[in-house]
C-alpha cells in the first residue's frame, strides 16, 4: 500500500494541471458565448439611470420590470409573439411533413434519378437565400401576399426543406431494413409503414431538424421586415429592431434588452424541453442491441 501511495502524488499533479487548464478554457468559452446574453438579461432589469450611468453598472442593485411592462403596454408585443410563433411553427411542421416522405423516398424507394435529385437538393442549400429576396418580393407583390402569413411561411418552409430532407434521409438509411420487411409482411403499406413504424422511431431526428427549422424561422429578419409592413403582422426580430424611444435622440436600451430576452426565451425553453424528450437509443432493441 505504501508503495502505491508514494507513487500516486506525481500522477495526480499531472492530471490536476490538465484539469485546471481545461477548466479555465471552459470558463473562457462560456464567458465568450454567454456574456452578451447575460448583459442583455441584466440590462432588461436595470432602471434607466443604471443603464446610462457612468461608470458602467455591471451588476445592478435595483431591479425593475418597467421595460417588460412597457413592451406590452405601449406595443402589441403579445401579437408579435403570436405572429412569430405561428409562422415558425407552421413552417416547421410543413417542412417536416413534406421533408419526411421525400427523405424516405430518397433513402429507400430506389427511384430513378435519385442521385441527381439529391445533388440538386444539396445545391439549393449552398445557394445564398438573400439572392432570392428581390425575386420573392416581386412574386409576393404579384400574388398580393404582402402582410399575409403565407408570405413568410412559404419561403421559410422552402429554405429549410433541403436540410430537413438531408438529415432525415441519412437517419432513415440507418434504420434496420428488416424492420421495414417485417412491416411489409405484417401488411403495412408504404404510407402506413412510414407513419406508424418509421416516424415514431425517427422522433430524435424529427425533433433535431424541427428545432433547427424553428430557430431559423423564428430569427429570420429580412423577409419579415420587407413582406410585413402592418404593425400587427410583425414578428419579434423586426419589432425589436424597430423599437423607438420617446424622442429621436433616445435609444431605448431597456426595452430593446427586454425584447431580446423575450425573443430568446422561447428558443431556450424549446431546446431545454426537447433535450429531455430526445430519448437516446430509441431504436435499441429493434435488432440485436
Amino acid at each position, binding site marked *: 500500500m505504501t508503495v502505491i501511495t508514494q507513487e500516486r502524488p506525481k500522477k495526480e499533479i499531472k492530471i490536476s494541471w490538465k484539469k485546471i487548464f481545461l477548466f479555465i478554457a471552459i470558463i473562457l468559452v462560456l464567458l465568450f458565448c454567454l456574456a452578451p446574453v447575460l448583459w442583455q438579461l441584466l440590462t432588461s432589469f436595470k432602471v434607466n439611470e443604471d443603464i446610462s450611468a457612468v461608470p458602467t453598472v455591471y451588476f445592478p442593485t435595483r431591479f425593475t420590470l418597467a421595460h417588460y411592462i412597457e413592451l406590452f403596454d405601449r406595443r402589441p408585443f403579445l401579437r408579435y409573439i403570436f405572429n412569430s410563433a405561428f409562422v415558425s411553427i407552421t413552417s416547421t411542421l410543413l417542412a417536416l411533413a413534406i421533408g419526411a416522405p421525400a427523405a424516405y423516398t430518397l433513402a429507400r424507394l430506389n427511384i430513378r434519378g435519385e442521385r441527381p435529385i439529391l445533388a440538386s437538393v444539396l445545391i439549393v442549400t449552398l445557394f445564398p437565400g438573400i439572392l432570392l429576396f428581390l425575386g420573392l418580393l416581386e412574386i409576393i407583390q404579384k400574388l398580393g401576399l404582402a402582410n399575409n402569413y403565407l408570405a413568410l411561411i412559404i419561403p421559410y418552409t422552402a429554405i429549410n426543406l433541403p436540410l430537413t430532407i438531408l438529415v432525415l434521409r441519412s437517419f432513415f438509411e440507418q434504420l434496420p431494413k428488416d424492420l421495414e420487411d417485417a412491416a411489409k409482411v405484417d*401488411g403495412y403499406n408504404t404510407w402506413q409503414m412510414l407513419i406508424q413504424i418509421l416516424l415514431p422511431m425517427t422522433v430524435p431526428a424529427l425533433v433535431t431538424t424541427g428545432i433547427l427549422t424553428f430557430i431559423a424561422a423564428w430569427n429570420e429578419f429580412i423577409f419579415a421586415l420587407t413582406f410585413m409592413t402592418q404593425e400587427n403582422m410583425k414578428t419579434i426580430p423586426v419589432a425589436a429592431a424597430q423599437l423607438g424611444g420617446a424622442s429621436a435622440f433616445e435609444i431605448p436600451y431597456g426595452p430593446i434588452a427586454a425584447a431580446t430576452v423575450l425573443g430568446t426565451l422561447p428558443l431556450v425553453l424549446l431546446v431545454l424541453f426537447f433535450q429531455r424528450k430526445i430519448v437516446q437509443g*430509441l*431504436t435499441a432493441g429493434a435488432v*440485436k442491441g
Partner: protein
Amino acid sequence: MAKLEIKNLNKTYTPKVIPVKNVNLTVEDGEFLTLLGPSGCGKSTILRLIAGLEEPTRGQVLIGEKDVTGVRPGDRNIAMVFQSYALYPHLTVYDNIASGLKLKKTPSQEIKQRVAEAASVLGLEDLMNRKPGQMSGGQRQRVALARALVRRPDVFLLDEPLSNLDALLREKVRAEIKQLFAEQKVPVVYVTHDQTEAMTLSSKVAVLNKGDVQQLDAPERIYNNPANVFVAGFVGSPQMNLLTLLCQGRYAMLGDFRIPIPDMQTPPNSIVLGIRPENVTLAESEDRNTIKGRIFLVENLGMHYLISVRVAGSEKEEIIVRALVPIHQKWSGEEITLALPNESIHWFDVQTGDAIVKSSIASQLV
C-alpha cells in the same frame, strides 16, 4: 391449409449476379423444409422471394394452388421471423404481436384472445407491457415467434432465427421451435447455414449452392447418401474426408494402399473417395481396407479425438485422412493403422462431382 410451391424461380440482378438460378420446391402442409447452404448460396433470397419482399425475374410462387407471384407481401398471408427479430421498438410486446391482426381489422375481442393464446404458448404473459429494448435476446426471439404464430398464416418463413442467440440458448430455443412448429399444420420454410439446425428440425432439407438446389431429401439421406461432393463436404462436422485418388484397374490408390472401387463399365483414371471421420476406425485384425500413416495432429473435441493422419506412400502428393476416435480408445506411437469400412465409403465422379453409386452395393461387389 395450403401447399407452398415454387416453380422455376429465378432472380437475376446482373448477368453475373444470379443468386437464384432455377429452383423448384414443394412444401406440403405440416412439412418443415430447411434451406441449407453457405452464405451467398441464395437461400435468403429464395425466402424473400416467397415472402414477396423481392420480385422474381422468372418463375412462380404458389400458395395453396394460387399464384401469388405479383401479390404484395401483406396479402400473401405469410408470417416471417427475421434473424434480427425486427420488432417495432416503440411498441409494447402486446402491440408488436397484435400489429398484423389490427391491420387486418380483426375484431378487438378476437385479437385479445389470439394474442393471449400465442403469449401463453411462448411464456410471454408477464412481458406484455415491456418494450423490445427492455428484453433479452431470447425473449425478443419469442416475441418475434409469437408475432408470426398469432397471424395463423398459410406459410411460415424463418430466416436464421437462432443465429443471434448464444450457444446454450440456441439449443433450448431450437427444441422449442421443433415442438412449436410440429403443431402448426402448415408449410414451414427455414433458412440456416447451421447443419445441426437443419438436421434436427427439418422433415426435408434442400442443400443449396450458388443458386441451385444440390440435393432435396430427408435429413438422414442428406447425411448418409450425399448426392454430390458439395453436399458431402458441406453437411457433417468434422468435414468428410474427400480424397481425389488415381485408379489402377478396379482399385483406387490411397498412398500405398488399394481400395476397391465400385464396378463401372470403363474404369476411370481417377475418382473421389469420401468417408466421414467418424466412420474411420482404428484397425483391428479382421478389417480389410486398412491404411497406415503417421499422426501429425490430435485435436481433443471432448467426446472424441480428431486425429489427422498423413497416409504412408503419399509423399509426392500428400494425402491426409482425418479420423474421429472415441476418447476411451488408445493408440500408441505416431504410426497408426486405420480401417475404412467399405459400407461407409462414398464415391464421386471427379468431373461432375456426382455420387457414383451407393457404397453398400460396392461392398457387395468386393
